[in-house]
């Protein structure tokens, strides 16, 4: 999970780190940063607390290589949905159809590979394109026809549920024979060799991630200094580098102790990196947030609100397709109930991750953390043998608490 941690707390380059001008102490600076970014840090702290509690209660079983590896793999298909849902909620819409859309497209993928005999490397692009088309169609209903997204996506949800039943009606569960395809949900990056019981290639990947992270942080810092912007103090900078690198190293070490990085984790990381870049660094990303924070002002600023809506729903469709592929590959089969309630898990992950229901606010990285928080709760409670009835109630409570925290901190900042 190197990426997640590395993009996490935005330490703003040109904000005065401390009111104490003469010689700010490291502790004082850290406190100010924490205060300013409380909303973002809050989530990381919550995740940390959850991890510590479960680790203690399970005698370390929670943080075992095997459990963490399974936890992350099982989060994959909701995590990619949460990424897409973040943008949908940011532009003040919702998409309830993503669960069964994913299930339906997973089934189509299975049918293409088994009944039509199409190889997996052709099937996957076909399904992804199909996802974009489906998403765009939702976008047209919402932006051009003017149907509230709640209703149009509810209709789409029913349609996809029916479509999924229709295509799996005769065969029931469709088993996918392609090992390559199934590896997407179950396979791991090859180890090459083991060093002290750890997978070598995964270790190398972790190391590369750390080096890349340090390189970009340094580049960013020198760039800011070149423009004479204020940066955090050298001590704080080093502390941050060491801290984040240590977390990447730790996660790498844990995963290498089991089977190494799974393809699911690699794919999710790829999606997060791309979406994080799109949302924070590009014109398209800015336009999405502008539409979310004030659609009318966005229109008057020359932004094509309809086009942005198509793109966001199109991307949601694409990620639904990817989610369907991940899920089908993980189960090595397409079932008649695939995708049930995925949409609600994705929406919950986005809200826990700090997306605002009022629109315009929310980060892709936050939603991923939200997804991990929810998955950790499930995993930890399963290990502890908590009954399923309590599990739902506790997860509901956490969702409510996250949103309450969000509302309170927002209000305080005015």
């Amino acid at each position, binding site marked *: 999970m190197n990426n997640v941690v590395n993009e996490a707390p935005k330490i703003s380059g*040109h904000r005065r780190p401390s009111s104490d001008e003469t010689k700010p102490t490291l502790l004082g600076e850290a406190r100010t940063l924490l205060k300013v970014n409380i909303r973002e840090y809050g989530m990381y702290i919550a995740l940390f607390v959850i991890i510590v509690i479960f680790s203690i209660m399970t005698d370390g079983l929670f943080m075992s290589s095997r459990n963490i590896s399974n936890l992350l793999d099982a989060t994959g298909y909701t995590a990619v949905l949460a990424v897409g849902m973040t943008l949908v909620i940011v532009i003040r819409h919702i998409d309830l159809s993503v669960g069964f859309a994913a299930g339906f497209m997973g089934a189509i993928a299975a049918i293409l590979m088994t009944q039509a005999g199409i190889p997996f490397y052709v099937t996957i692009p076909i399904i992804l394109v199909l996802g974009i088309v489906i998403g765009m169609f939702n976008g047209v209903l919402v932006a051009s026809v003017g149907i509230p997204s709640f209703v149009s996506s509810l209709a789409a949800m029913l349609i996809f549920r029916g479509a999924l039943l229709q295509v799996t009606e005769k065969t029931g569960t469709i088993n996918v024979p392609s090992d390559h395809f199934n590896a997407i949900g179950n396979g791991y990056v090859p180890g090459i060799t083991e060093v002290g019981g750890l997978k070598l290639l995964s270790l190398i990947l972790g190391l590369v991630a750390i080096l890349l992270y340090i390189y970009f942080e340094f580049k960013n810092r020198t760039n800011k200094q070149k423009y004479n912007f204020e940066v955090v103090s050298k001590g704080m900078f080093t502390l941050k580098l060491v801290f984040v690198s240590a977390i990447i190293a730790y996660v790498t070490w844990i995963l290498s102790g089991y089977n190494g990085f799974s393809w699911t984790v690699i794919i999710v990381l790829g999606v997060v990196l791309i979406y994080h870049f799109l949302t924070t660094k590009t*014109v398209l990303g800015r336009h999405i947030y502008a539409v979310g924070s004030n659609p009318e002002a966005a229109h008057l600023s020359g*932004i094509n609100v309809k086009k942005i809506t198509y793109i966001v729903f199109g991307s949601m469709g694409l990620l639904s397709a990817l989610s369907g592929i991940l899920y089908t590959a993980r189960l090595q089969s397409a079932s008649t109930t695939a995708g049930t309630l995925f949409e609600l898990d994705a929406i919950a992950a986005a809200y826990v991750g700090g997306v605002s229901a009022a629109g315009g606010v929310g980060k892709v990285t936050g939603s991923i953390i939200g997804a991990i928080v929810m998955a950790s709760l499930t995993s930890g409670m399963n290990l502890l043998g908590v009954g399923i009835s309590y599990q739902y109630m506790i997860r509901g409570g956490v969702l409510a608490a996250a949103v309450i925290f969000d509302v309170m901190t927002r209000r305080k900042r005015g």
Partner: protein
Amino acid sequence: MSNYILEMNNISKEFTGVKALTEVNFKVAKGEIHFLVGENGAGKSTLMKVLSGVYPHGTYSGDIVFDGKVQKFDKIADSVHAGIGIIYQELALFPDLSVYENIFAGNEVRRGSIIDWNQTIVQAKGMLAKVGLNVNPETLIKDLGVGKQQLVEIAKALSKNIRLLILDEPTAALNENDSENLLNLLRELKKQGITCIMISHKLKEVIAVADKATILRDGRTICTLDASKGEIKENVIIKNMVGREIEDIYPKRANKSFGDNILEVKNWSAFDTQLGRHVVKDVHLHVKKGEIVGIAGLMGSGRTELALSLFGNPKAYKLQGDMLLNGMPSTFKHTSDAINAGIAYVTEDRKGNGLFLIQDIRSNITAANLRGIASKGVINENEEVQVAQAYKDSLYVKAPSIEQLVGNLSGGNQQKVSLGKWLFVGPKLLILDEPTRGIDVGAKFEIYSIMNKLISEGMSIIMISSELGEVLGMSDRVYVMAEGRIKGELSIEEADQEKIMQYATQ
């Protein structure tokens, strides 16, 4: 003792530091039609809200004497109970309910706790007859024209046995015929002993129906004119409406020189399909390079609609007519086309549709021109910071940093950010809609100075404003709008407050 049905004595009302009303005295005799006249912001609506209990007793000072008794209304229902009914410009009807349901909404005809619908319909018919509206009471409100909806509102008010009826600009959205009907109804109601207070900007109406007219200016009573003494005359009313001292806070431009027409509009009309009427009609105007053209007029006169129709038509009006930019015919499909053609529009409602309040100064300034700081769709954040910082400094935006959320800034600073956003686009024609509304004098002066500087750099400006001082102080030429039309064009030498108000109240 007196024949006054209503006396409002020494009414003062303050909104967080701004005096909206200062010791206003307003007396209305039984059975008369009394007009309240004044510019936008003179305090007419505030005074009526005090009277109807929208602002409860205790939030203002002074007394209200109605029917010989001092009244202390805590809520609107109290004033209705006393016999005062108010009808706002924005009608408060339920479009998907029928006429009879609307008339008795909130005042249902009951038997016990159950609504007696048959009785409701019977009584509704009686009310409709009273206001002379001949429609089936089961018709839905949305299927009626605005004129008839207005009558339903009056029927609704009358159903509550009111004796004083207040109408806030009832004819603003009506056509000639409907207005005439409404005025006739007022005369009819007067015969039935109902007293009427009416707010209007149309002086023709005032002269035609008023028994008395009270003029407010800057939250003070100026005078009450009496028709029976022959005092209600157009020139008298206008003189009293505008007679404000204009302070000289307008920075002068040294040498004025105008170039060719940068914008020319001919026979320009915009039809609003939702309202079902023209919001802009047969407009001709032109703007020269290096010129500040003022568009004066009262609120609702079609000025903002005109600006929007020229700026890529975001409200999707049906447009007719020709627009020439630098002599070339142009049509815009989207606001982005207008921006690319060199037009910028700083909105009237900066919080509602001008700014992204939950974003910082930096993102707001670059929002309309992200391409200017991006290559291949990727934003260069360092360049963005420099741009934002430069505009923050040159426009004197007072904020600790460009990371400050725009929602936390004062009105004047928000306006400057809004201006900065549009200047970064590099426009040739800047449309400013109420550029100084709600901001303090210091910030106003800064904005005027910025305008002059932009003109000296070769820009042209259209300034829409309700503030006559600003129009006269800053413009090179003035158009006056009313009812979607340009009613007059004045060179700055011939323009004065009276002339502008005369056109604006036609």
